[in-house]
C-alpha cells in the first residue's frame, strides 16, 4: 500500500513535468513562429528556459515555499521544544531523516510539509497550532506531515506548486502586456506598423488565458483528496494514538482562516487555510469525514 503510493506519486510527478514542458514548448513554438519565423528556435529556447527555471525551482523548493508562506526556520530544540521534539520523534518512528523545521507567525492553527524527498524535507507549523494543541494532538498533526514526507506526497505537491506559481506569474505578465499593448495600439493607430506585434500579443494573451486554468487543473490532479486520508492513517500508524489526531482535527475544523496565506500553497496544509465556502474545487476532504474514518480504526 505504502510502496504503491510512493510509486504512483513518483509516476505522477513525471507526468506533471512532461505536461508542463509540452505547454512551454507550445508557447515557444507560437512565439518563435511569429517573432523569428522559425518553430524550432522558439521551441528550443523555450525548453532551455523552462528547464533552467524548473531546475532552479526544484533545487530551492523548500526556500521558495517557505518564503511564500512566511516560514521562519528554527535550528535547535530550545526555540520551540515541543514542536522540535515532536518532529524528532515522528521522524524516528517513520524512519526518515530529521527534516528542517519552520514556524509561521499566524494565530490560525495549521501545518504543512514540503521538499523533494525524505532527505530534503521541511515541516512548518503555525504559532496558533503550537499554542492550542496538547502534546498528543501535536504529535498527531506532525505524524500526518511525516506520512506525507515518507509517501513522497511532498515531492509532487511541491513541484505542482512551483509549476502553477510559474504559470500564474506568466499569466500576470501576459495580462499586463495585453493591457499595455492595447494602449499602445490606440496611440499607434495612424502609423499602422504594429500588425505583427498585435498578432503576437493576441496569441500570447490567449495562450496565457488558457494556461492559467490548466495550471489549476494540474494542481487538482496532483493533489488528490485521497492522500489526506492516507496520511491520517499513516499518522495513527506512527503515534498509535488515533485520539490525538481526532481531537487535533476537531480543533483545526473549528478554527479561523489564516491571515495571509498564499492561495497556491493552500493544498499543502493539513486543513484548508482559506476555509472557503464552495466545495467543488476543495483540495481537502471534509474534516468530519476524516474524523469518522479515524474513529473506525
Amino acid at each position, binding site marked *: 500500500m505504502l510502496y504503491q503510493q510512493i510509486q504512483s506519486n513518483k509516476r505522477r510527478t513525471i507526468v506533471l513535468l512532461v505536461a508542463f514542458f509540452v505547454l512551454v514548448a507550445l508557447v515557444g513554438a507560437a512565439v518563435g513562429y511569429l517573432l523569428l519565423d522559425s518553430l524550432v528556435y522558439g521551441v528550443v529556447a523555450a525548453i532551455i528556459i523552462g528547464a533552467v527555471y524548473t531546475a532552479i525551482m526544484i533545487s530551492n523548493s523548500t526556500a521558495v515555499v517557505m518564503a511564500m508562506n512566511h516560514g521562519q526556520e528554527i535550528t535547535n530544540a530550545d526555540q520551540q*521544544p*515541543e514542536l522540535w*521534539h515532536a518532529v*524528532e*520523534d515522528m521522524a*524516528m*518512528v517513520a524512519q526518515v531523516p530529521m527534516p528542517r523545521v519552520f514556524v509561521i507567525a499566524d494565530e490560525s492553527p495549521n501545518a504543512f510539509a514540503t521538499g523533494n524527498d525524505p532527505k530534503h524535507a521541511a515541516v512548518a507549523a503555525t504559532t496558533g497550532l503550537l499554542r492550542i494543541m496538547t*502534546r498528543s494532538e501535536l*504529535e498527531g498533526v506532525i505524524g500526518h506531515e511525516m506520512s506525507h514526507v515518507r509517501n513522497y506526497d511532498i515531492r509532487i505537491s511541491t513541484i505542482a506548486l512551483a509549476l502553477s506559481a510559474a504559470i500564474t506569474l506568466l499569466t500576470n505578465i501576459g495580462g499586463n502586456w495585453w493591457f499595455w499593448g492595447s494602449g499602445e495600439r490606440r496611440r499607434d493607430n495612424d502609423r499602422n506598423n504594429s500588425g505583427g506585434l498585435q498578432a503576437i500579443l493576441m496569441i500570447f494573451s490567449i495562450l496565457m488565458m488558457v494556461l492559467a486554468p490548466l495550471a489549476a487543473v494540474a494542481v487538482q490532479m496532483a493533489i488528490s483528496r485521497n492522500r489526506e486520508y492516507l496520511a491520517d492513517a499513516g499518522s495513527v500508524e506512527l503515534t498509535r494514538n488515533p485520539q490525538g489526531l481526532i481531537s487535533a482535527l476537531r480543533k483545526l475544523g473549528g478554527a479561523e482562516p489564516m491571515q495571509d496565506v498564499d492561495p497556491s500553497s493552500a493544498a499543502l496544509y493539513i486543513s484548508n487555510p482559506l476555509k472557503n465556502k464552495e466545495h467543488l474545487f476543495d483540495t481537502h476532504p471534509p474534516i468530519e469525514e476524516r474524523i469518522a474514518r479515524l474513529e473506525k480504526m
Partner: protein
Amino acid sequence: MTIIIVIVVIAVIALAWIAIYNGLVKARMQTQESWSQIDVQLKRRNDLIPNLVETVKGYAKHESETLTKVTQLRQDVAAATTPADKMAASNQLSGVLSGFFARAEAYPDLKANTNFNKLQEELTNTENKIAYSRQLFNATTANYNTRLQSFPTNIVAGVHHFQPSEFLQVPEAEKEVPTVKF
C-alpha cells in the same frame, strides 16, 4: 552439457544463499541499532535525574520518598544487563516519574521554577522517545523474526544459527492515567 547445468544450478543456489544471508545480517543489525536508540534515551534520562532530584529537594518536602525511589530505580536501570531487565526497571521508573509530574501541579513554587520546567520538558521528551524507539524496536524485531521463520530463509538461518530477537512488552501501567493524591 550436464556439467554446465550442474555448475549453473550450484552457482544460482550459492548466490541466493549469499543474498539471503546478507539480508538476515542486515535485518539483525536493524534490531541492534533500534535497541541502541532505546539505550541512548535510557542513558539520557539517567543523566537528567540527578538534576531533577536536586531541583525538587528544596521545594517538595513530601516527595522525599519518591526521590529515593527514583534514585534507586535509576541505579537499577544502569545496573541491568539484559534488555528485558533494563526495560522492566525503566518501565517502573517511567511510572514513578509520570506520577510525580502529575502531583507536581500541586506545588506552585516548583511550577514557577524555570529550571524545573525545562527538566520536565526534557524528561517528557525522553519518555516519549523511549516509547517511540520501543515501537521502532518491535517493528524491526517483527521484520527480522518473520524472515527467520519464512521459507527458504529459515534454512540459511538454521545453518548459521541466527537467533530470534525478543519483543519488548508495552507496560500496562503506561496506558492508565496516574492517580493524583494530595
